[in-house]
């Protein structure tokens, strides 16, 4: 067994414990440990990416229990892709949290421990092959995110934080309900085993499985902030500290990942009575989310809320590709997920630098920034990328998505909404840029210039986005291969279970279709 597979979960956990042991006074030690752990994660994640290029599905059985009984970690192309994305964004967010005039990791206690626990939850959620284990890792990352959101305190953060915690607790209750119902009819919670068991359900059990599938969709839609369950996001993301918000850019993608994984694998095209049950709901929700995110970005009065609404719009855009659920559209959606996470994380980090020099991120007249050329260029690159204008990665991703959805009954509506949202984002970001850099009030003392180190994470994320556009062909080949691998669940199940055939440990027989 390849023990490297569990490193993305164990490394942050060990680092979190170490930073707790180091205590508040030894911030240098904490920072060094956190940086080393994040660098280690980048190395391991890109190793995993390299390992999966050929299409291998690697399984790690915890305690070496055979798959339906024990918990399995599964590394396939999708998991490796998400691990690598998480590691890159986390490294940038961590460096951003340690630099600047008032570093975020010193504004409260336990920042590094919480940050590492969040990474542990994220990596675990991407790796696990078990539905209940997915719930556990969701909770790990959520509990860490509650505390990170409140990091630095302040009434606005507490108000947003209470909503965020309450909404997610309700979603967790629903998640458990769906898991229990699914277990009641199938007798297993291993995703590969579920994929085999759901098509064989008796006619009396199919409605329960369908209900469980839709409840799961609601839960994942809450995490992904899909319309109409997005209400917690804009306030929370705008209130969070910018490095935290940059890391949160990946959290909505966890919800999308769970939809792809669970609804693609378990309730896919061959799932009998519960086949493709999420598709129609998801498509309507995705289109509404794009429209709403664009309107919200248009109406935002500051750069942070605007970035939050652009996050909502990006989730909607990539969910369009997921909902259509053809191989081409899924490949395009995965490329778009990479692009949007990098670009939005860069935008969130940029918010802090601009706000620090202007004395706020609002669009009202304020003192001019000290480095207009540098920050303006950075905002311009991020804006072009997010709005989906050529030549950057947003354009490539959106173009691929439009091509993949070209011959559907819903194409006119899809294209109209996606293109109009792109226009709205362009205008909104242009307005934001001109307000931030040209609407100036009389200044007192000139603002302090941002140090090189504090701008490096933003620059690195923007460079990664540009690299994504330059190397669009190989990256797109990989995401397309990922989509093909996801479509072929018949390969996934035997790889995890070793021998095909659903077995249950339950003391009573599962009613199977004759």
């Amino acid at each position, binding site marked *: 067994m390849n023990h490297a597979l569990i490193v993305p979960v164990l490394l942050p956990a060990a680092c979190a414990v170490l930073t707790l042991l180091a205590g508040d006074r030894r911030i240098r030690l904490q920072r060094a440990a956190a940086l080393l752990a994040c660098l280690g994660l980048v190395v391991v994640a890109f190793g995993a990416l390299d390992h999966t290029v050929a299409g291998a599905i690697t399984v790690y059985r915890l305690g070496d229990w055979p798959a339906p009984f024990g918990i399995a970690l599964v590394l396939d192309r999708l998991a490796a892709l998400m691990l690598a994305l998480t590691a890159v964004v986390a490294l940038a967010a961590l460096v951003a949290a340690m630099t600047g005039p008032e570093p975020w990791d010193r504004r409260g206690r336990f920042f590094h421990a919480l940050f590492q626990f969040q990474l542990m939850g994220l990596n675990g959620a991407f790796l696990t092959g078990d539905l*209940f284990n997915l719930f*556990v890792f969701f*909770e790990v990352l*959520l*509990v860490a995110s*509650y*505390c990170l959101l*409140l990091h630095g*305190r*302040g*009434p606005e953060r*507490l*108000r947003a*934080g*209470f*909503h965020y*915690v*309450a909404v997610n*607790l*309700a979603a*967790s*209750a629903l998640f*458990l*309900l769906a*898991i*229990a*119902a699914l*277990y*009641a009819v199938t007798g297993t*919670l291993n995703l590969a085993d579920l994929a085999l068991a759901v098509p064989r359900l008796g006619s009396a059990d199919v409605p329960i499985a369908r209900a469980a599938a839709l409840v799961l969709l609601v839960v994942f839609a809450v995490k992904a902030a899909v319309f109409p369950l997005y209400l917690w996001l804009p306030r929370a993301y705008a209130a969070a500290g910018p490095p935290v918000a940059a890391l949160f850019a990946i959290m909505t993608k966890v919800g999308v990942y769970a939809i792809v994984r669970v609804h693609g694998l378990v309730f896919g095209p061959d799932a009998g009575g519960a086949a493709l049950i999420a598709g129609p709901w998801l498509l309507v929700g995705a289109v509404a989310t794009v429209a709403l995110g664009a309107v919200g970005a248009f109406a935002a009065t500051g750069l942070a809320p605007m970035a939050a609404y652009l996050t909502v719009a990006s989730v909607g855009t990539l969910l369009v590709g997921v909902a259509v659920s053809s191989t081409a559209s899924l490949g395009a959606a995965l490329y778009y997920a990479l692009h949007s996470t990098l670009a939005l994380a860069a935008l969130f980090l940029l918010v802090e630098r601009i706000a620090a020099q202007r004395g706020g991120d609002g669009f009202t007249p304020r003192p001019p920034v000290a480095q207009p050329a540098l920050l303006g260029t950075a905002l311009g690159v991020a804006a072009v990328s997010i709005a989906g204008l050529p030549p950057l990665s947003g354009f490539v991703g959106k173009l691929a998505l439009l091509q993949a959805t070209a011959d559907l009954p819903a194409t006119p509506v899809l294209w109209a909404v996606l293109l109009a949202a792109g226009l709205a984002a362009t205008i909104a970001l242009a307005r934001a840029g001109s307000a931030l850099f040209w609407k100036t009030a009389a200044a007192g003392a000139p603002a302090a210039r941002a140090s090189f180190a504090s701008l490096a994470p933003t620059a690195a994320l923007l460079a990664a986005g540009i690299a994504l556009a330059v190397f669009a062909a190989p990256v797109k080949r990989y995401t397309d291969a990922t989509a093909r691998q996801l479509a072929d669940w018949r390969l996934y199940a035997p790889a995890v279970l070793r021998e095909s055939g659903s077995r249950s*440990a*339950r*003391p*009573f027989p599962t009613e199977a279709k004759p």
Partner: protein
Amino acid sequence: MEFLVAGAIAVLTACGVYLSLRGRTFPVVLGLGLLSYAVNLFIVAMGRLQAGLPPLVTEGADGYADPLPQALVLTAIVIGFAATGLIIAVALALRATTGTDHVDGEEPSE
């Protein structure tokens, strides 16, 4: 027994939903707590309701109770407990910072 358990889950869920839709933080916390109780009962019930069966395979017994939902519910209880503790802390901090126990952190204007 089925009716009793189902009725208990229904009452807990109804109370939980009602309370968690209130405008003050304390009822919301209570409501989320009741919801998690209902969910925990539901998980146990999903392992089928049986009385008097040993938890493990035992010689001479008719069968054994499904151990997996019990393991799941233990995990769910632990996580729910931690999350409830956290939301109470947030609610208290909100009350202390904003001076109101309304969920929005400000008194609604009449």
